[in-house]
């Protein structure tokens, strides 16, 4: 892993936000070092987008503080905005304008003009594979290209921190991979800090560090490897056949000799000797179980261990802003 420099790009302390009576964020503490690639991972309704909007200076925190490179998001919005490149989940390019016009408009907003504008524009168009669509209306681009234009736009003024909300939503796996490749090339070269929200595990895995958010709280924070190492080397998952088979967990513990936990119709245990246990359990428990699987721990397992519920089954909270309740 790369050495993490000591400058702090993002610092959040006790950050909280409510939507009416609903808790959007409930005391979030985290710190992101300059140059890191940082994932904010969580299910819908976990508070990801609320955190994103506070860091992007669009929402004021109800309680707590957040600072970007030392500038408070609530009181020094202008300094924060200079340091930030922001990519929203919903497209923020103007579809009726051409690729070039969109970038030029961004230049006007960020004070990039003349020779500098031309240089940055051309470099970004090349890097993001948009050079031949220079004169095309943004509305005619494919989803993948449109997202690249969004990111190129956000990088035009060479921000110190690139903040993205679910950047790969709606992209197919190939477009996603291409997008991250182009983004990596550009940001690693410039030393840009990248913080992004996602509900995709592999995007969390590919980050330097990840914060897992659930119901407005950070339930896990660290490098993906360190978080998974807490679980053990292998996870054995036993699917319960009949809901409410009360003795099953004790039975599994007795047979395997490992402590087990139960959540959402599944029994989980950290089992370094899992390969030996699979046939043993299937023979002993037969019809009482729906299946057994053995895998390396994932961030899902980390989530399950920390919250007691499954990642995809986390109850979505009732945010009224439909489609961006995350």
């Amino acid at each position, binding site marked *: 892993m790369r050495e993490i420099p000591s400058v702090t790009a993002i610092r959040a302390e006790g950050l909280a936000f409510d*939507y009416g009576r609903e808790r959007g964020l409930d005391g979030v503490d985290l710190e992101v070092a300059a140059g890191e690639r940082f994932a904010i991972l969580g299910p819908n309704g976990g508070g990801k987008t609320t955190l994103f909007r506070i860091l*992007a*200076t669009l929402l004021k925190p109800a309680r707590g503080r957040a600072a970007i490179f030392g500038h408070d998001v609530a009181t020094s919005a202008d300094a924060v905005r200079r340091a930030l490149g922001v990519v*929203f989940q919903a497209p923020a390019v*103007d579809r009726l304008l051409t690729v070039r016009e969109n970038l*030029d408009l961004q230049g006007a907003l960020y004070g990039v003009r003349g020779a500098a504008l031309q240089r940055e524009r051309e470099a970004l168009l090349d890097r993001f594979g948009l050079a031949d669509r220079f004169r095309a209306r943004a509305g005619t681009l494919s989803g993948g290209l449109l997202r690249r234009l969004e990111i190129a736009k956000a990088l035009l003024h060479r921000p110190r921190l690139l903040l993205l909300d679910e950047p790969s939503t709606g992209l197919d796996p190939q477009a996603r991979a291409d997008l991250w490749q182009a983004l990596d090339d550009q940001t690693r070269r410039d030393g840009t800090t990248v913080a992004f929200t996602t509900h995709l595990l592999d995007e969390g895995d590919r980050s330097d560090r990840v914060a897992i958010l659930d119901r407005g709280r950070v339930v896990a924070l660290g490098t993906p490897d360190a978080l998974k190492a807490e679980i053990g080397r292998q996870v054995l998952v036993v699917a319960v056949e009949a809901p409410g088979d009360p003795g099953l967990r004790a039975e599994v513990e007795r047979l395997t000799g490992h402590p087990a936990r139960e959540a959402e119709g599944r029994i989980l245990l950290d089992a370094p000797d899992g390969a030996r246990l699979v046939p043993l359990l299937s023979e002993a428990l037969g019809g009482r179980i729906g299946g057994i699987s053995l895998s390396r721990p994932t961030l899902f397992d980390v989530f399950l261990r920390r919250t007691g519920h499954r990642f995809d089954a986390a109850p979505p909270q009732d945010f009224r802003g439909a489609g961006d309740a995350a």
Partner: protein
Amino acid sequence: MSRAAAATLALAGRETRRFFRERSRVTGALLQPVLFWAFFGAGLAPSFHLGGGIAYGAYLLPGIVVLVLLFTAIFSTISVIEDRREGFLQGVMVAPVPRGAIVAGKILGGTILATAQAGLALLLAPLAGVPLSAAAFAAAVAFCFVLGFGLTSLSLAIAWPMRSTQGFHAIMTVFLMPLWLLSGAFFPAEGVPRWLGLLMRADPLAYGVAALRRILMPLPGVPAAADAGATAAAVEIGLTFLFVVAAFCAAVAVTRRRDGALPG
């Protein structure tokens, strides 16, 4: 040029570019005033008997021009309702540009479009029997720019905090359209019931319509009437400026609030 000014101009340029790329908007903008004036003017002329021998088509013309300003203002600002939550404006709002500059850009763009269309509507004047000198045309266009800026500001101030375009349509029906109906654009205040007369006097748009009518149709007459006319014109133009400044301040104030309570 300061960054704020550059941002304002770039955003205003965006508004006008978008307009010309949406063909239906261009066609609608050209046809709308002609149709309104033709239908209302021809339809209502037989029922109206105005003093001074003014034909109804001529009376209605300044009102139609103001209606064009109002409609263009509404159509160019209604997009912010979705745009600021789910689109282009989100990106603009996180840029290091003062809100005032962003708002000014949006309003300036809408005003340019409104003024251009009002200018086209003014070309109906000869058909309405209103002789239009180059000087009167220039003065009317300049005045339309000022009034259009106020109406676009007002419309933006209303649209900004809205959650849905349906909500805006409701406000349009119960507030913006009556603002126009009671402005003297459609019928004069003389002889209306007292309550209606009071409402018409309280309507800030009334002074804009009156001023525009005065620019287009200066009353011929005795020096005393001309003096009184000059005083009235000063009052009308002064009140119109007051309205424009107030509307712009309201628009800036509304957009400065960060969404504390609004989700999303």
